[in-house]
């Protein structure tokens, strides 16, 4: 603003009227005084020259009108004080000189004013653009500050890794994760920090994909200075102006607490499923005992027979051998049944393997055959022998089967004889297979066909209402669906689907 004020002062140097005209009178008076003084020192008459200076100064600083006044005063002073005796022509000539000089100065002053005006305008423009530039710098540095804050105060580990696998920049979270100052990591090769083998096997493949231009996401358990941690990481390519990937932006979020919580939930669900299996097995104790007792009885019979053939008066070794082979066969059968009961009762990690659904159905039907017999229920199986194998946890799928069959048996306990349970396996359309368990029991409660799958829904006096809930979670965790319908004229059917893995599809 000071510059502009000065410009204005240069245009109109004297602010007041008195000042401006005072400058005209004063400057002519000064020229007169200097000339008179010089005459005393015998210098020839010099007023004309000083008068021109006075006129020029007045024009320059006080403007046109005071300049003209200075010119007129100079003419009068010269005519009447210095050259009173000269001819009218000579006076007019000098007056003409002053007049031309005044006009010239008027023009000079005008040009000067225009010039100064332009300079002032340009200065204003420059000042403005300078200010907006300053503002932009402030804004940019603010934005940079915020970006820096994002980097520095992010709750996630944020780092930039060059294509040479060296750290370009790391934030405090990453520094804390590795227990060393951030500055000490810059320039360091990743392998130095995480170990050569870990780097080559677990990080480099992802980084190389990122450097090839791909956004990479992955999560896994890692060991760092804070212990065994579950980290979800994203690798994003950072590109130069020429679109070449020059670095990777890595954002790593520590999800250990979430991973532990979901692990705990998974374990709780497995515990619940196990508890439910044990409850069912408890209900089956009598039938299972009978199922094991049959081959044991047969083995004891065989052993007795064997002894009898050997202790006769004329021992028959051939017959004894046959009987002994029967003992082995039946003892093995008893062991198989016990092993199967144990595998269902076992509490273990969920294991998915290729499994033959028909084999799983046959095993569970064999285990429950006696239970069905107890209530005079005829069990029919209608299995499609051309079914591809599925990827499943056999124990869990058999738990679903066991729940459905036990429910059917319960539903038929109080109906008229001709109780029939039928189990079918078929190939469904959408790359899945479907298993159905149908009975002609009491059927599902009206208007509650879907509620039966809710937790704690039960129609049994001693049921806890978890069986179908757990069955549905098991089927859904395998990528299938479990549903129920009522049969006509009576009974209910339960269906569940299981996906057929692409590799076993024909």
């Amino acid at each position, binding site marked *: 603003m000071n510059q502009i004020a000065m410009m204005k002062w240069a245009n109109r140097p004297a602010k007041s009227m008195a000042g401006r005209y005072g400058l005209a009178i004063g400057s002519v008076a000064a020229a007169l005084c200097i000339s008179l003084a010089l005459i005393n020192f015998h210098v020839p008459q010099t007023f004309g020259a000083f008068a021109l200076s006075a006129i020029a100064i007045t024009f320059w600083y006080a403007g046109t009108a005071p300049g003209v006044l200075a010119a007129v005063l100079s003419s009068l002073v010269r005519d009447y004080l210095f050259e009173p005796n000269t001819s009218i022509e000579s006076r007019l000539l000098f007056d003409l000189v002053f007049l031309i000089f005044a006009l010239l100065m008027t023009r000079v002053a005008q040009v000067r004013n225009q010039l100064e005006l332009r300079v002032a305008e340009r200065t204003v423009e420059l000042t403005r653009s300078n200010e907006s530039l300053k503002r932009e710098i402030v804004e940019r540095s603010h934005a940079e500050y915020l970006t820096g804050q994002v980097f520095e105060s992010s709750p996630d580990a944020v780092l930039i890794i060059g294509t040479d696998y060296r750290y370009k920049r790391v934030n405090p979270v990453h520094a804390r994760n590795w227990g060393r100052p951030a500055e000490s990591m810059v320039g360091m090769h990743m392998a130095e920090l995480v170990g050569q083998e870990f780097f080559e096997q677990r990080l480099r493949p992802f980084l190389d994909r990122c450097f090839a231009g791909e956004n990479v996401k992955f999560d896994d358990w890692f060991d760092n200075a804070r212990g065994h941690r579950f980290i979800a990481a994203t690798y994003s390519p950072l590109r130069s102006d020429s679109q070449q990937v020059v670095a990777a932006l890595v954002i790593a979020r520590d999800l250990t607490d979430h991973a532990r919580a979901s692990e705990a939930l998974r374990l709780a669900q497995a515990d619940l499923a196990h508890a439910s299996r044990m409850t069912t097995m408890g209900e089956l104790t009598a039938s299972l005992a*009978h199922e094991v*007792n049959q081959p044991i*009885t047969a083995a004891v019979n065989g052993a*007795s*027979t064997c002894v009898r053939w050997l202790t006769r008066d004329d021992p028959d070794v051939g017959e004894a051998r046959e009987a002994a082979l029967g003992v082995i066969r039946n003892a093995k059968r008893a062991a198989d049944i016990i092993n199967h009961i144990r595998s269902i009762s076992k509490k273990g990690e969920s294991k998915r393997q290729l499994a033959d659904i028909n084999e799983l159905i046959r095993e569970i039907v064999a285990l429950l055959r006696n239970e069905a017999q107890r209530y005079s229920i005829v069990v029919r199986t209608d299995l499609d022998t051309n079914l591809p194998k599925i990827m499943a946890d056999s124990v869990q799928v058999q738990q679903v089967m066991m729940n459905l069959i036990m429910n059917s048996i319960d539903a038929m306990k109080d109906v008229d004889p001709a109780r029939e349970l039928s189990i079918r396996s078929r190939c469904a359309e959408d790359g899945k297979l479907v298993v159905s368990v149908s009975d002609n029991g009491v059927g599902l409660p009206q208007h509650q066909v879907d509620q039966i799958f809710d937790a704690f829904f039960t129609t049994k006096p001693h049921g806890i209402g978890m069986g179908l809930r757990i069955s549905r979670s098991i089927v859904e965790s395998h990528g299938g669906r479990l549903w129920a319908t009522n049969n006509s004229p009576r009974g209910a059917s339960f269906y569940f689907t299981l996906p057929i893995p692409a590799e076993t599809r024909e």
Partner: protein
Amino acid sequence: MSCHKETILVAIVDDDDSVRGTLQELLRSAGFPSRAFESAEAFLGSGHQQETACLITDIRMPGMSGLELQARLNAERCKIPTIFITAHGDEEMRFQALRAGAVEFLPKPFDDEVLIESVRAALGR
């Protein structure tokens, strides 16, 4: 209908293949010819009840139970000395069977000597 025992045939009724088969072998080693049936209905339908001198039957089977078979034979005035073998017999069931004229009530697995003695007793030897 009544039945007249003409032979000394032992009949076995049990739904479990292996129990049925090994029991038949056991009796053969002891010198008793036998016939085996997988259900009470099969036995009743076979027409062999007349020549059966001793019946060994399981109690719990699909369809007709061993006790029902005994009642049926009693009703038909065809009293065959019967030995019950069962994996889960309780006292009540045992009492019911013996009251209906059972020779013996044996829990599975059973001692061969006891069974053979019971068969001998049933056959009156």
